[in-house]
């Protein structure tokens, strides 16, 4: 601990605050590592070891930990999804491999690792092999500024949320690379649809964040959590929360927006031709994005590591992430897939105006009460959100085109009458 390090004469490291993850977990790995290195090199001063070396080693260890949290969380989110979907459909779900199916992810991983990797003859081989990597890297980058507990953040960026918005939209390059290079019609259609979908829902997603940023006055994710002093932002931003949740499930290509892999129409969208570990890496990318976005929702709207009961911060954070992930799975089990034109209408004609209204209503509220928003605004906000959603749904005509009744060909009529 810091006292210990001062006693040995080894000076605290300048980036100590960024490494607090381990202090929270009580592992104290980093101080011991720093101290051990300091003592080994003769003690009293940091001299001997160049600063950049200490920085690089500690940074590598921290970054490795965060990458692994993301990658190892994925199999268990998949298991949770299979278990929950099973329960929703009155089944048991995977329960054969290990106790309660807990070793199922291991079995799946081994299977994927040893499965034959098929590359179509006509594919663009280089792009085909690179696409999973291009898809998964931006998703992993999203985890760097996530605050897991007070001071427990790898890179405490001042532009945190802007960075996340910028990085996550890069994953679509990987999707389109995969879809185009497969030289398969299903892949190409899937990739085209995804690009259109993500481009459309990026705008409401980004605009919904603006309301939260205005409440806090900072783009730093830790500052946003600290800014939610007594109640989570959800209570001040119900409309923003609705828009953000819908836009995120579209970003993630989750049901009801899973045009990416509309199984009944497109086989499995852009990764139709993928098999083996390339397919596995794409799956890791998709599910890591779910984990990451759940963390962002928990941070922005549900006050991150804070909670009403005295529990360690990271436990609250993981609990909230788990709730949001389960919510996504619940939605997937409940709501049928939308058509492409319905999705486009929802994004541009419904969510975008709602997000703009939300920004200016929030701005007006904050300016009208500069010393802090009064509590009675919470029910007013919820009522306002409900009214706006109802009115917008009625006025903006997102019901879509009236259904055209196509007369059945005569052969079917005779079949039906006989």
């Amino acid at each position, binding site marked *: 601990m810091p006292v210990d390090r001062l006693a040995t004469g080894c000076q605290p490291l*300048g980036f100590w605050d960024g490494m607090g993850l381990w202090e929270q977990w009580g592992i104290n790995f980093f101080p011991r590592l720093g101290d051990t290195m300091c003592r080994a090199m003769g003690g009293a001063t940091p001299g001997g070891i160049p600063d950049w070396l200490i920085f690089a080693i500690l*940074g590598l260890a921290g970054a490795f930990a965060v990458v692994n949290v993301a990658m190892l969380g994925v199999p268990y989110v998949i298991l949770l999804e299979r278990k929950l979907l099973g329960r929703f459909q009155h089944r048991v779900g995977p329960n054969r491999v290990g106790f309660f199916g807990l070793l199922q992810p291991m079995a799946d991983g081994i299977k994927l690792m040893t499965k034959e990797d098929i590359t179509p*003859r*006509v594919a663009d081989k280089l792009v085909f092999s690179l696409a999973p990597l291009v898809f998964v890297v931006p998703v992993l980058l999203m985890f760097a500024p996530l605050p897991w507990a007070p001071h427990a953040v790898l890179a405490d960026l001042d532009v945190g949320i802007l960075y996340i918005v910028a990085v996550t939209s890069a994953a679509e390059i990987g999707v389109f690379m995969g879809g185009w290079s497969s030289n*398969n019609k299903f892949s190409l259609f899937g990739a085209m649809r995804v690009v259109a979908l993500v481009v459309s829902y990026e*705008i409401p997603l980004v605009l919904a964040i603006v309301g939260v940023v*205005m409440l806090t006055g900072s783009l730093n994710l830790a500052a946003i959590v600290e800014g939610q002093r007594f109640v989570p932002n959800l209570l001040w931003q119900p409309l923003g929360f609705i828009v953000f949740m819908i836009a995120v499930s579209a970003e993630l290509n989750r049901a009801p927006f899973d045009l990416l892999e509309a199984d009944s129409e497109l086989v499995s969208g852009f990764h139709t031709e993928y098999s083996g570990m390339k397919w596995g890496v794409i799956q890791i990318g998709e599910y890591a994005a779910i984990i990451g976005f759940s963390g962002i929702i928990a941070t922005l709207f549900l006050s991150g590591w804070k909670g009403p009961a005295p529990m360690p911060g990271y436990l609250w954070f993981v609990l909230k992430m788990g709730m949001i992930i389960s919510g996504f799975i619940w939605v997937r089990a409940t709501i049928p897939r939308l058509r492409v034109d319905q999705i486009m209408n929802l994004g541009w004609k419904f969510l975008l105006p709602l997000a703009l209204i939300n920004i200016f209503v929030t701005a007006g509220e*904050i300016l009208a009460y500069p010393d802090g928003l009064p509590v009675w605004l919470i029910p007013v906000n919820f009522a306002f959100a409900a009214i706006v959603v109802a009115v917008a749904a009625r006025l903006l005509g997102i019901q879509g085109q009236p259904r055209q009744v196509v007369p059945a060909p005569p052969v079917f009529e005779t079949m039906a009458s006989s």
Partner: protein
Amino acid sequence: MSDFGLLGIFVILAVLVPASMLLIPYMLTVAGVKPHRPNSVKNDTYECGMRTVGGSWVRYNFRYYFYALSFLIFSIETVFLYPWAVRFKDLRWFGFWAMLVFVGIITIGLVYEWRKNALEWK
């Protein structure tokens, strides 16, 4: 600045870890654990069991062009909105009305686009 240094280290690892996951199966193939027996049917393009007709690198309907244009406009609007949102408690009502006018102008464009049916997925 140290945060960006950590981010740089993180970027390197975020590339290396998935890349190693893609390399392990390759090594397993070399070691003979993983099968690698390509044949002409297996390596054909999948098309619901039918014989593949033609390639896919053809001209296709560029339907999301209008969406991409609108996306560009609104993402530029966002670039202006974020700094405003951070500092807007200092700008007070002047900032509010200025941004309302700015967003209003773009919204007029959106309404025009809407009236012209550019937002329909055809």
